[in-house]
């Protein structure tokens, strides 16, 4: 020891071994990182940035502050008690005139309409009628449209001059800001999101439980058969896994619809009358049956890979110690399969709450998921801020599940097929 500290070990070219080793490690770290960096860069640009952009969009609030910039500036000192003064109305008239000439008031009027219904037509009508309006603008605007004489309108305008907003998140959980700034529930007939979130979670739990119930015996059978048989049976599990999602959904439509195979069979067998066919599709049943079928392989495969490693001698030992079969299973075998249950369960649950295609095709009204609402706001209502907010909440739930999965099982252990 003392010798080596006196004369440090060196490589052939005289560099101390320690330094040389450190250099080699650093070089190989850099090389490894350089190999990963193209993909990392690609994913950051094509995936992480879009997600970050979506998260930003869910709080972004540019409409009032940019398109009504003069009004926003004039409203800065307003106390919120009585109606604002003439200079604010004049600024609004000027803003609307500029906006009308540029024909870009659409986004602004939709945005304000989310906060106070009727604002879309108020803005559009006022902007169209501006040409005939003369100062003083306060009286003229209030005469043209009584909405401008309400204190609420100005309170909302003042609030929305902020460059960011939480109102999309509030809307995503069926809440809104009152003009005074308190968080209140939306009217009962507009309450849809919270119940959809709960329904999505609840139905995903049902689907997870069903896949576990059906997947456990299959995984057990596969694990206890000799390999040459289990490999054959595994193909029966992998075939649906590899088959197009749309194909599997289509087959369930063909089987479950009221003129479908199952109903025809039941009528032919005399179980049900021809005019009392079961309604099994375009409702919750359809979604649950089709999604259980689609997600079943995701439960079986992790369970199987865990059960494969459990030695059969444990069960034999338990039996030889006098345990009855059920007791042996419950106390010895079942606890050993818990990692597989956790892996499969979380995987199925994550996939299930984010499913869109199957609920949209076979879910009807009662079997819709929250994902269908995201698509609705993206494509039909064009309320992209709300779509982004709902998607962000869903993303949060999924990421939490993913982190739990990662902590419990580790993403490295994910195997395919």
């Amino acid at each position, binding site marked *: 020891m003392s010798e080596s500290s006196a004369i440090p070990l060196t490589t052939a070219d005289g560099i101390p071994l320690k330094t040389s080793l450190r250099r080699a490690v650093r070089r190989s770290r850099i090389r490894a990182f350089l190999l990963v960096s193209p993909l990392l860069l690609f994913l950051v640009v094509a995936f992480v940035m879009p997600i970050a952009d979506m998260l930003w969009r869910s709080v972004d609030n540019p409409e009032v502050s940019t398109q009504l910039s003069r009004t926003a500036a004039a409203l800065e000192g307003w106390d919120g008690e009585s109606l604002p003064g003439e200079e604010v109305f004049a600024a609004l008239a000027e803003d609307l005139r500029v906006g009308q000439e540029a024909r870009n008031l659409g986004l602004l009027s939709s945005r304000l309409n989310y906060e106070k219904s009727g604002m879309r037509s108020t803005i559009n009508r006022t902007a169209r009628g501006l040409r005939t309006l003369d100062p003083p603008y306060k009286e003229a605007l209030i005469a043209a449209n009584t909405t401008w004489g309400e204190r609420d309108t100005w309170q909302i305008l003042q609030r929305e001059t902020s460059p960011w907003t939480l109102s999309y998140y509030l809307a995503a959980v069926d809440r809104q800001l009152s003009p005074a700034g308190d968080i209140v529930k939306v009217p009962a007939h507009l309450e849809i999101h919270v119940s959809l979130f709960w329904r999505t979670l609840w139905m995903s739990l049902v689907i997870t439980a069903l896949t576990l119930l059906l997947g456990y015996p299959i995984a057990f059978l596969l694990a206890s058969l000799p390999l040459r048989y289990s490999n054959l049976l595994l193909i029966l599990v992998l075939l649906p896994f590899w088959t197009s999602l749309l194909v599997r959904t289509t087959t369930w439509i063909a089987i479950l619809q009221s003129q479908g195979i199952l109903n025809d069979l039941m009528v032919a067998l005399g179980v049900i009358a021809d005019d009392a066919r079961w309604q099994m599709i375009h409702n919750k049943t359809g979604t649950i049956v089709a999604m259980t079928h689609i997600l079943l392989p995701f439960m079986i495969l992790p369970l199987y890979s865990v059960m494969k490693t459990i030695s059969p001698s444990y069960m034999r030992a338990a039996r030889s110690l006098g345990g009855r079969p059920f007791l042996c299973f419950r106390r010895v075998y079942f606890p050993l399969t818990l990692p597989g249950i956790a892996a499969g369960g979380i995987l199925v649950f994550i996939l299930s709450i984010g499913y869109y295609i199957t609920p949209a095709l076979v879910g009807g009204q009662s079997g819709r998921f929250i994902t269908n609402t995201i698509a609705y706001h993206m494509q039909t209502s064009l309320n992209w801020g709300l779509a982004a907010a709902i998607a962000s909440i869903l993303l949060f739930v999924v990421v939490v599940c993913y982190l739990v999965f990662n902590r419990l099982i580790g*993403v490295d252990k994910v195997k395919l097929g």
Partner: protein
Amino acid sequence: MATPSYATRGERIWHYVFLGLCALIFLFLVGPLLVIIPLSFNAQPYFTFSQEMLALDPAGYSLRWYEDFFTSSAWLNAIKNSFIVGIASTILATILGTVAALGLSSRHMPARSAIMALLISPMIVPLIISAAAMFFFFSKVNLAQTYLGVVLAHTVLGIPFVVITVTATLSSFDTTLIRAAHSLGANPARTFFKVVLPLVTPGVVSGALFAFITSFDEVVVVLFLAGPEQRTMPIQMWSGIREQISPTILAVATLLVLLSMLLLTTLELLRRRSERLRGVSPG
């Protein structure tokens, strides 16, 4: 799986009940896929078996839906688009993913698990969220409604599969083989092509197959990102199911089931080849 000799009568009965249950579950898994194959030969425009079909009358069967499929320009165009997007995104994902997997399997890779978690995340994030996010972002940079946009999006979705399969292959790769090749006088290039590549190829190919099937079967992202020119086969099926449900869909579905059988066989052969090359005997 036979019952052990010490099993009681009750256990034997339970054993057969269990096997029966498993058979029913297997029927649930595979039955729906098999049921649509005969239905696609239906002569009637219905989604159910007609009287003639049940009586095995040849008049009840026809190839009209297949004819419909192969003569429809919309379907053929959709197939073409699916292959363009699928092949382009598979090539991109395979190259990027394989190179990254080489780095990830190095012992000295910094922040390995965090990077791995990021690379896998496109598989975990719900498709509708990825689709919405990419739609917002790609519209800003004028990539929405272009082939390039769809290809890039599908590359993102295919990458986790390539990374997982190739790192799995590399983790069981015996690095002493490289040293052995060197010691026998092979130069690095020869070592790579003669030793490393043959052992890694099965993993890369199965990763590429996963990436391809992911793209080939993907609806949600295309639904948001693609314009009418980039309609792929899943989109054509999607609108077929939603709007005018015709048995042509069943013909397409049958063809896709056959395709997945083909892919599954290919993968199984690759797996066996890889085991044979490694000297691991299949049990």
